[in-house]
């Protein structure tokens, strides 16, 4: 930025209105050369733009079938215009509202648990004196982040089997064995616990980065004033990471309905649909398994619109409150 300012006196616009840097030699020669340079740069963008159109924008236009009746084997854009028909259909559908509220509850529940844990973990890590121990604890805590959803679900199935370690422990403590993954009332607990397990260690990264930026002299001054460790955490460390906390909170609220679809799909069982069926899994069954394309697209479009609405609002809030924003 600074460098371009320095050169601003040397910039002109060519006949296409492109700004061209004129370093030393004569006027006309450089202007045509600038055009040539830009032509080369544009050609680099060709492949990415073609990819973007094919794999992002064409299917985005395909959302039009939410408003049109689709005939099997027919056009990707549907055959006849039916307006809000499919929206009214899901609006009146009790299953839709069940999966909608399941999504909200699961999303909010996951946020409530997964958001504070990394903060606590980062504060604890920050209090560790031995660098080596800290490094080892960090590396181990990052492990779950690198595991695939299928592996994580495999681990959960193994741990929660009726003959698995968790049930063995419960049994030895005198409780009944519980088939966790087949009980609707346990689904949210299992899902949220697994999300906490996966995200806590990795989630500390941004907080640890923020912690290194706190001025160490603040701690010295506080110690001179007789502040103990708890008070130092409360009055120096926490305010020091507060901007990071607020920014991440706002962003996470924006993504709250983006519940981890894959993981829910793999963990759910028809027995637990009462709590485990969310918009994403409902869409998958309707659209891909039952080929109910228009209806499923209408539901998906509705979810995307809620998502973009939440993000816009939270982004606006973030801009106002913390001066950081996604766009």
């Amino acid at each position, binding site marked *: 930025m600074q460098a371009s300012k320095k050169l601003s006196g040397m910039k002109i616009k060519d006949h296409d209105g492109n700004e061209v840097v004129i370093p030393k030699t004569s006027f006309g020669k450089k202007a045509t050369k600038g055009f040539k340079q830009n032509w080369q740069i544009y050609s680099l963008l060709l492949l990415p733009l073609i990819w973007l159109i094919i794999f992002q924008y064409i299917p985005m236009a395909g959302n039009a079938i939410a408003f049109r009746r689709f005939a099997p084997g027919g056009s990707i854009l549907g055959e006849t215009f039916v307006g809000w028909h499919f929206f009214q259909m899901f609006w009146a559908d009790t299953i839709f509202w069940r999966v909608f509220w399941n999504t909200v509850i699961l999303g909010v529940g996951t946020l409530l648990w997964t958001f504070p844990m990394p903060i606590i973990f980062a504060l604890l890590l920050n209090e560790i004196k031995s660098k080596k121990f800290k490094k080892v*604890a960090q590396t181990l805590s990052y492990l779950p982040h690198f595991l695939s959803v299928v592996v994580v679900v495999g681990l959960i199935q*193994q741990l929660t089997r009726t003959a698995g370690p968790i049930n063995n422990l419960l049994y030895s403590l005198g409780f009944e064995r519980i088939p966790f993954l087949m009980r609707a009332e346990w689904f949210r607990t299992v899902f949220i616990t697994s999300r906490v397990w996966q995200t806590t260690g990795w989630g500390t990264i941004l907080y640890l980065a923020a912690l290194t930026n706190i001025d160490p002299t603040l701690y010295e001054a506080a110690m001179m004033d007789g502040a103990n460790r708890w008070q130092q955490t409360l009055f120096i460390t926490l305010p020091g990471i507060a901007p990071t906390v607020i920014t991440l909170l706002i962003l996470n609220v924006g993504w709250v309905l983006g519940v981890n679809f894959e993981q829910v799909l793999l963990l759910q069982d028809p027995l637990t649909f009462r709590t485990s069926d969310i918009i994403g899994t409902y869409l998958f069954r309707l659209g891909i398994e039952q080929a109910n394309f228009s209806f499923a697209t209408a539901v998906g479009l509705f979810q995307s619109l809620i998502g973009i609405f939440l993000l816009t609002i939270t982004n606006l809030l973030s801009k106002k409150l913390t001066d950081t924003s996604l766009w």
Partner: protein
Amino acid sequence: MSKKRKKHYTKATTPGDIVIVILMVILALLCILPVLNVLANALSSPEAIMRREVTIFPVELQTQAFASIIGDSRFMFSLGWTALITVIVVILNLVMTVLAAYPLTYNSLKGRKIISFYMIFTMLFGAGLIPTFMLFRDLGLLNNPLVLILPGMLGVFNMILMRNFFLGIPESLKESAEIDGAGPMTILWKIYIPLSLPSFATIGLFVAVGRWNGFQDALFFLTAAPDWHPIQMLLYNITQNATQVDVASPGGVSVQQWGAAIRNAAIVVAMVPILCVYPFIQKYFVKGATLGAVKG
């Protein structure tokens, strides 16, 4: 600065320190105990598993479960196939990411803002599952192994990361090269790419881990082509008991009883490549995560 920070903690070990260390040990153990339990189950005899004796150490050690997995030609083919598509996707991604990110570093480029907007917009408003499914059907990508490669050729988040890396390269380097008569291609090749190797590692590893761990695309778009299933999809089928693995030498025990050991061995084998590399690649991920957070 670090010296000063130490000073703040020069006091002797307090009870608080001990509590924190104990807490951290518990938390760190919680992260790896599930993995150890799966490993122990993969290495224990079916009888011991049925007697519920296995926790985190193998009981009555056996390696047949692993031998069955490694001896299963489908599983090994899938491992190799997944490794191959991972390499291809990483290379394609790096090329495409550079092609997309480099032009956007030119402030003078007309239409730069609009192009960035159209790229970033796709992060906010996804295409949707069903329209994507229908597009792939029309393109002939359903049950076609290319579906594991083409749609993942470019990631907009990675593009932003790469652009941020590029923008961190001093503009004066570019300008002095321009004065020397170097064109944009030469500048990209001689200055930007050599200086961005660490960022290539970061983005390449993001893509590699994502591809290795990915299974959603196979679940949606490769249902009728099990031969091309990547390792995670195969593992999913094994853990759901949809795919049977032939047990090499059950030794008088029925295949049913081997189920738990085989499943767990499959999980371990699919997880091992990641387990082996993640301690070494985590720093690139940390870098990517913090850089991506700076500004989108």
